[in-house]
């Protein structure tokens, strides 16, 4: 056995009957860091930005611009959700840079939770923007005969959102484990550097696809 089972759970400890895996603890730490950092950064906002505030403003404006380009609608209502998803997935993907930390996104349960958030938000934003009746009517739109396929595509694109992130990050981890067991210490280093690129690109893709799905649900763009 080269690596631990990538599909199984590594239970660290239990709270009552609830098993808590290492990935969950890592996400808690990342959530605390992101939320604490954001609270700290936004508590002292000034009209003349300091260096940190300028960096943060650039980040937020860049994300808003990307969302606007993708969804072709004012980005303000979607910026909190999609921006948080992007930052969270990016931090999760880059967490293995620290020693002894594994990427939480390399576990199926983390990506399943993220995809579920997008799934619920899709319908939530769709109903809020269009109203329940018109939102339900858009499922019958090109032709009512296609309803089963439309419903199926709702499910499969959430599933593929989950499996894509999980598969990319986990397979990269597996490749590093295999190389480490075959070739020793230094050879995996360039592959790990490639992992930085993979992590950033996958976070970007997750956020853009979430934006595309939300845009399709509110009727701003055609479904991807």
């Amino acid at each position: 056995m080269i690596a631990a089972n990538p599909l199984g759970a590594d239970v660290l400890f239990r709270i009552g009957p609830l098993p808590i895996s290492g990935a969950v603890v890592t996400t808690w730490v990342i959530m605390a860091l992101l939320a604490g950092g954001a609270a700290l950064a936004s508590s002292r906002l000034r009209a003349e930005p300091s260096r940190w505030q300028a960096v943060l403003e650039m980040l937020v404006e860049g994300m808003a611009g990307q969302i606007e380009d993708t969804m072709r609608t004012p980005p303000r209502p979607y910026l909190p959700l999609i921006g948080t998803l992007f930052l969270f997935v990016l931090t999760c993907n880059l967490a293995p840079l620290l020693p002894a930390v594994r990427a939480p996104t390399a576990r199926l349960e983390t990506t399943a939770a993220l995809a579920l958030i997008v799934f619920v938000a899709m319908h939530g934003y769709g109903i809020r923007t269009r109203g329940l009746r018109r939102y339900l009517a858009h499922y019958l739109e090109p032709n009512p005969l296609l309803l089963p396929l439309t419903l199926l595509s709702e499910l499969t694109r959430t599933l593929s959102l989950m499996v894509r992130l999980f598969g990319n990050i986990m397979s990269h981890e597996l490749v590093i484990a295999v190389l480490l067991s075959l070739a020793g210490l230094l050879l995996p280093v360039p592959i790990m550097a490639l992992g930085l690129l993979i992590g950033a690109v996958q976070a970007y893709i997750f956020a853009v696809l979430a934006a595309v799905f939300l845009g399709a649900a509110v009727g701003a763009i055609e479904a991807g």
Partner: protein
Amino acid sequence: MDTDLIKIASIIGAAVAVSFGALGPGLGEGRAVAAAMDAIARQPDSAGTLSRTLFVGLAMIETMAIYCLVIALLLLYANPYIAH
């Protein structure tokens, strides 16, 4: 004896799944990138829109390969026909 046979078949199945699952998306992604390169060479102004669409499209194509990888991992690590 019987589980041994299932294990052999699972390993071969995993290898076949990954190899053929990489073949199709590889060809498809190559065509997509080539078409995007062509478009960017013709219209460098729209490079931003093109590369964003390309990224999303590549992610969609790549999902097929990832599905095959997951099937292979299921066969190797969580095979329902072998009692673990």
